[in-house]
């Protein structure tokens, strides 16, 4: 496992560099041109392969080829609504807007694209708000059709559920107070006695406990629970994906995100393992969104704080048979 992790970290650095390069290369940034996408697609294979392959030889980011959908998709059509598991408190990705009461964010945009494709017209999603720790079980029990909740694709999760193709590459970073001198998690380890928060049931918490024993790992039920602890002075730092931390900085001017990403977190939409036709259908929708600019528009809307929209992550396919 340790070997796998170090390669993952290496991969992350490469991915992060590639991402930065993509950003820097974007001229005026606003309209993501088709050309940039192509450029990134050339660069991507260099960045992605170092992400370690699973025991079955497949990359965790590898999904099933896009397809037209079958029985599972028809069942959703018959039901009249797509049931989705989301976060309601992760600003920018999936959060309830206190002013309008609506759940919105980048994850939600992806789900809306799927819903629109299934029903042929925009159709309200049937939300189920879940914690990070509930993501696998709601799929295994078929309580929802899709889960889009900053869901990192990894080998362990592929054993019980299936993922769509990657739709966003996040990287794990650290959030500290504005006047903190720590610029990385290693700095926090060096300071000693530093409490760092991560949500339960996430890859973030596992990595924190295993790779950084020098800090005290504190868990909270949700990412936002970590922000509460941070604001109350009960933890000195929060670690999480840059996408999520960006949402925290937007809510707290006394927080800042420091350092480079130390892991690559490829986000995929979770699907039950026995609904591969739905996976294929979702992949078709994601490819479409990545190609027609709607992906970039969503990115700019929600994650503009991270920089101009990069090229979308390249879909990797080639998985066959059951996950």
């Amino acid at each position, binding site marked *: 496992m340790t070997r796998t992790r170090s390669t993952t970290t290496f991969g992350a650095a490469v991915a992060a560099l590639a991402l930065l390069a993509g950003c820097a290369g974007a001229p005026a940034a606003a309209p993501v041109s088709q050309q940039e996408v192509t450029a990134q697609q050339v660069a991507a294979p260099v960045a992605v392969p170092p992400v370690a392959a699973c025991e079955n030889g497949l990359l965790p980011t590898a999904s099933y080829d896009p397809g037209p959908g079958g029985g599972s998709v028809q069942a959703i059509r018959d039901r009249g609504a797509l049931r989705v598991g989301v976060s309601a408190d992760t600003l920018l990705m999936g959060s309830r*807007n206190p002013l309008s009461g609506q759940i919105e964010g980048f994850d939600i945009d992806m789900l809306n694209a799927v819903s629109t494709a299934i029903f042929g017209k925009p159709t309200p999603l049937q939300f189920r708000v879940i914690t990070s720790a509930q993501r696998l079980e709601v799929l295994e029990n078929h309580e929802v059709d899709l889960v889009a909740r900053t869901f990192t694709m990894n080998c362990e999760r592929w054993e019980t559920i299936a993922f769509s193709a990657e739709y966003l590459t996040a990287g794990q970073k650290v959030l500290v107070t504005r006047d903190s001198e720590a610029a990385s998690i290693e700095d926090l380890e060096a300071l000693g006695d530093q409490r760092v928060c991560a949500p339960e049931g996430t890859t973030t918490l596992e990595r924190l406990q295993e790779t950084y024993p020098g800090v005290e790992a504190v868990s909270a039920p949700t990412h936002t629970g970590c922000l509460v602890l941070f604001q109350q002075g009960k933890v000195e730092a929060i670690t999480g994906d840059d996408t999520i931390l960006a949402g925290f900085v937007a809510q707290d001017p006394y927080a800042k995100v420091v350092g480079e990403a130390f892991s690559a977190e490829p986000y995929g939409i979770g699907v039950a393992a026995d609904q591969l036709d739905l996976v294929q259908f979702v992949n078709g929708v994601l490819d479409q969104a990545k190609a027609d600019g709607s992906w970039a528009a969503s990115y700019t809307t929600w994650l503009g704080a991270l920089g101009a929209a990069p090229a979308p992550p390249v879909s990797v396919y080639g998985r066959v048979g059951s996950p």
Partner: protein
Amino acid sequence: MTQTIAPNAAPPAAVPTAAPAPVHRTGLRGALSRTPGRLRVAGVVAVIAAAAVGVVGLNAGLAQSQALSDADADTTQLVGIQDVRNDLVIADATATNAFLVGGLEPSEQRARYDEAVASAANGLAQLAGSNAADAELLGQATAGLTTYTGLVEQARANNRQGFPVGAAYLDQASAVLRSDVLPQLDELVQANSDRVDASFDSVGSVPWLLALGILALAALVVVQVWLAGRTHRRLNSGLFWSTVLALAATIAGAFVLGSTAQRAADVRNGPYDETVSVSSAYSLANNAKSMESFTLIKRGSGAAYEEQFVAETTQAAELLARDTVDPALAPLFDDWLAAHAQIRALDDGGDWDGAVALAISDEPNAPNDVFATFSAAAESSLDASAQLTNEGLSGAGGSVVRIGWLMLIVGLLAAVLSWRGISKRVEEYR
């Protein structure tokens, strides 16, 4: 009690003081072998017996009056604590419901929250002053309340800026209320209700003290029987009237104390039971109302809250079904449960927005309105039954104290009569 035992223990001690009067002959044994000496001993026994009736009566009266005022004070304290508990769950239910609305909370809900918190803070301070034994736990509850209101304000401030972290603060506020405030109050409710029970028990058991008066009466009768045998006169008027007075005092005392005990028992099984039942049920209902809001806020992941809702409302319904409780309350409560079922039906059917719209609606006959109707009925029932309890307990204390003093006076009078009655016989031997 010590005073009532003392007279009984007194006779052996009193005898030597009575004995030295006829100094001739050889001491105590000699004095007792002669009739005048024996008469004097009989006199002392009669005097002590008669006085004992008075002393026992006064003690019983004072003890019962004390027990009544304890029951009254502890009931008031108990109701006060439950009021505070209700205020807090009302505040929490209001805050969480307002949160569901999104955007600015309606000003009347804000006002209701403020009112409930102010009333709770006020109540906590008063309760701490009225019973020192409760002060420590009340202090903890007050500290918890400060944390709670701070967190709610933080939730509001964040909500007002459109930050979802506000919901997390509200979550934490509710958790603090349920871990740092309500358990302390529940413990106090239990302690006070135990104290009330103990006071009611002693109100009921005090009349049995008068059984000691019956022993004293028996002693008076024995003295007279002995005297009749010794003097060949059927009646000694002093002793006779003394016995009559002591008997009358004991009967009157038994009647007043017994009927007071009965009245207290009626209060305990009537308005007091109603007060405690309705207050607990009301508290449970408000807590369940918070759970209803949380079930919706959690949107699809609130099953645990709904389970708690069911458990708490079931318990509340059992309390409202008690015989002592105003029968008008249960149907109003059931109406609210039916309204809640509508919300659940919408949410479980996938229409979360519809469920929320119903849950926050302030239209007539919407769940909030139905709950308000139940709340108003429960509150007025609580006020009425608490007042009845208070009246039943505070009015009775005066009469038992009066009968106690009356018994003492009569007992002393009887003692004087006894002594005079015996003295006449003793004089015949001079």
